[in-house]
């Protein structure tokens, strides 16, 4: 048997128990087949709800809460594990097949040292003695490029960075010397500059140990770097299955082509026109009770009808800047001028007009809307609050706004939990627009969304800017988004603006070290990109 993993006609169902009404069964994966040879990597790619994680876990014959494998065969080294007893599966899981999850921070036990957790499965399966397992772990730590490989195992999970923790988790999966590792979005929660290091480490470890791997992600550019083959999934069906090179360069199906050529939203840079609508002058801010400036002498300008993008990694102070401008965090020094008038430091002192003209859209649309209010109430409230609209007048305006965000009136009586992620974000946009603002602060509005949905949101925002003439302060860590929406760009690093200017100028050389690192870390959809970048970098990424 040359095949390590052979999946045939896999069907997975779920038992749904709605709060009112009778329970029913649905099928979420409809007959998927694939093969994986030893030492190869298969990328599973698709949007949320495509069933990629569910398929990944089936290689461990495991279904997450309520999910059940209802049909098909999963062969590992020639034996069908779906027919195995629980006792046999226990020997398989954590030894022959291991799993690396998305959020390493949530998957480690915070009360135990890393070494104990990394060696746990070896000990549990009686594979070797504790000292041998520790030797293996240290070798893996070194291979994965972790600092101080001999002693890092003595630390607790909170004592290492997110990128390091993800690599420790990879070591944990490789420690029992498995035949197959399932990687479930291992780099999705990381910054681009960290992602690239983790990606390189994982790729090298897979190559050196010769394991087979399933690599689950929604990012085609990432999977192109590590996998030999790619399977594109949509709603539990295989859309396309082939070699990485073929999928990336000659996609056959329309859906794959859409994924490959994403970011159709385009935006030509506008020239500076009138007086700035927002002027931030030498702002410094720190959180109460700390002695550290999260914002350090930040100065920016935003013209009416234009978009200023703030780019940076997590911890660079982007969101803090938004909090300072909105008045949630008073600045220690500096001036904020909005539409020609100075903004007071605290929210309580601002006039209703100031509040109305400065709106905000949040990253997580789920928690940005009151789950106990209907869509009509959510969009209607600013109309009522700022303009005193009531009854039929308000309803009419709400319907107009629903038109603008391209949602039908049937959504008005629904609750936020009944909407998809993209629809929720559209409602948040409508709520901001309802106030007829001059400036909308968009805080990572697309980063929680699938690429195709995010693209739709960006197009909508650009379109609304044309119609309403509203300005955006667009906070993001995603450079592809910046390219498609910004007029002016500010790159932030550790609370300082390190590069600021019109888009064309900021994104063309010569670069400063940090901007170079940031730009070069964005995965590109071509094989061999990862090796090129690692070889040519000017600056080590932070925290590694």
């Amino acid at each position, binding site marked *: 048997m040359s095949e390590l993993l052979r999946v045939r006609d896999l069907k997975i169902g779920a038992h749904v128990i709605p*709060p*009112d*009404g009778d329970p029913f069964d649905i099928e979420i994966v409809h007959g998927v087949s694939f093969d994986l040879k030893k030492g190869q990597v298969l990328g599973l790619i698709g949007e949320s709800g495509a069933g990629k994680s569910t398929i990944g876990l089936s290689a461990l014959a495991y279904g997450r809460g309520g999910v059940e494998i209802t049909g098909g065969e999963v062969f590992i080294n020639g034996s069908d594990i779906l027919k195995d007893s629980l006792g046999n599966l226990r020997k398989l899981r954590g030894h022959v097949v291991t799993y690396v999850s998305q959020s390493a921070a949530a998957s480690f036990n915070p009360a135990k040292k890393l070494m104990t957790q990394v060696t746990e499965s070896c000990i549990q399966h009686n594979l070797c003695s504790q000292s041998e397992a520790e030797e293996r772990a240290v070798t893996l730590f070194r291979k994965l490029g972790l600092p101080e490989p001999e002693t890092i195992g003595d630390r607790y999970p909170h004592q290492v960075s997110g990128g390091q923790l993800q690599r420790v988790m990879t070591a944990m999966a490789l420690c029992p010397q498995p035949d197959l590792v399932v990687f479930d979005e291992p780099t999705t929660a990381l910054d681009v500059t960290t992602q690239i290091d983790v990606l390189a480490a994982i790729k090298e470890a897979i190559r050196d140990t010769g394991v087979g791997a399933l690599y689950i992600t929604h990012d085609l550019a990432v999977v192109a770097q590590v996998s030999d083959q790619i399977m594109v999934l949509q709603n539990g069906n295989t859309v396309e299955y082939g070699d990485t090179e073929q999928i990336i360069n000659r996609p056959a199906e329309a859906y794959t082509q859409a994924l490959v050529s994403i970011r159709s939203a385009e935006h030509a840079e506008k020239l500076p026109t009138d007086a700035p609508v927002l002027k931030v002058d030498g702002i410094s801010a720190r959180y109460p009770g700390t002695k550290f400036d999260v914002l350090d002498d930040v100065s920016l300008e935003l013209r009416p009808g234009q978009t200023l993008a703030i780019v940076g990694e997590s911890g660079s102070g982007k969101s803090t800047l938004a909090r300072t401008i*909105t*008045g*949630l965090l008073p600045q220690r020094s500096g001036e904020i001028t909005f539409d020609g008038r100075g903004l007071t430091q605290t*929210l309580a002192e*601002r006039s*209703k007009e100031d*509040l*109305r003209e400065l*709106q*905000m859209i*949040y990253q*997580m649309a789920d*928690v*940005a*809307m*009151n*789950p*106990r*209010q*209907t869509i009509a109430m959510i969009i209607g*409230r*600013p109309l009522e*609050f700022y303009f005193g609209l009531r009854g039929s007048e308000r309803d009419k305006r709400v319907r107009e706004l629903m038109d603008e965000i391209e949602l039908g009136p049937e959504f008005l*009586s*629904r*609750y*936020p*939990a*009944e909407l998809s992620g993209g629809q929720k974000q559209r409602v948040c946009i409508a*709520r901001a627009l309802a*106030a007829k603002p001059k400036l909308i602060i968009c805080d990572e509005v697309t980063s929680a969304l699938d690429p195709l949905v995010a693209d739709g949101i960006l197009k909508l925002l650009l379109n609304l800017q044309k119609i309403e003439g509203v300005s955006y302060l667009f906070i993001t860590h995603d450079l592809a988004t910046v390219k498609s929406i910004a007029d002016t760009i500010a790159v932030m690093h550790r609370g300082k603006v390190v590069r600021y200017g019109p888009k064309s100028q900021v994104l063309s050389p010569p670069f400063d070290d940090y901007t170079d690192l940031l730009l070069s870390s964005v995965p590109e959809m071509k094989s061999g990109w990862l090796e090129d970048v690692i070889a040519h970098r000017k600056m080590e990424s932070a925290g590694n």
Partner: protein
Amino acid sequence: MTRIPTSALIGLVITAAYFLAALFAPLIAPFGVGEIVGDVWEPMSSKYLLGTDGIGRDLLSRMIYGGRTTIFVALAATILSFTLGTILALTAVVVGGWVDMALSRFIDLIMSIPTLIFALVVLSVMPVTILVLILVMGLLDVTRVYRLARAVAQDINVMDYVEAARLRGEGTPWIVFREILPNALSPLVAELGMRFIFMVLFVSTLSFLGLGIQPPEADWGGIVKENKEGIVYGIPAALIPAFAIATLAISVNLVADWVLSRTTSLKGGR
């Protein structure tokens, strides 16, 4: 209307029976509450369905009137403690700062004194009327409700939608009643059932100790007290109110569980 689970149905029927009996006590009770109609501790018979008590009053009639008093006092005290406790807690969380600090520490201070002893001291110096009883019980229980509501509200207060309302410029009342309260209601409703039963037990305890409802008015705790000597002679009269309290407690909580599972749905299942 969707199906009501069996457990909730049982709870609903028993709770409704107790409440209806309390409401229509004068119509249902065969005799008056203080009326002496027979011999001491007569056994159950077709005339006296539950027998008679220590001085020859009909026990069924006293149970019905007693239930009326007990349920009314407990309900009024629960409503008082919930309204006050929830509003105080939510306001403390939304306003924050020294208001929150002062209120919370004051509540802690009150909580450090055992409730029963506090109530006994207050009631021994005050005239024991129904109004005073309700006020004392309700105010003392505010502490428990406050602690729960504050914990729940603190989680909700940091949500983006509350921040969005603040940025919109909404005042404290809107944030308290429109943004936070609807989302805090589920755990509070579950607690409401529990607290109501604790109130029934509390008023019964006070009456048993002689500081609650004063004779000749009846209440369940008082009936236990009046008939406790009977147990020595094998007379079950003192156990009947205990049985009533137990069944009421269980059935109210069955209903509260069902209400809870219905209101936790965010998909318009109300």
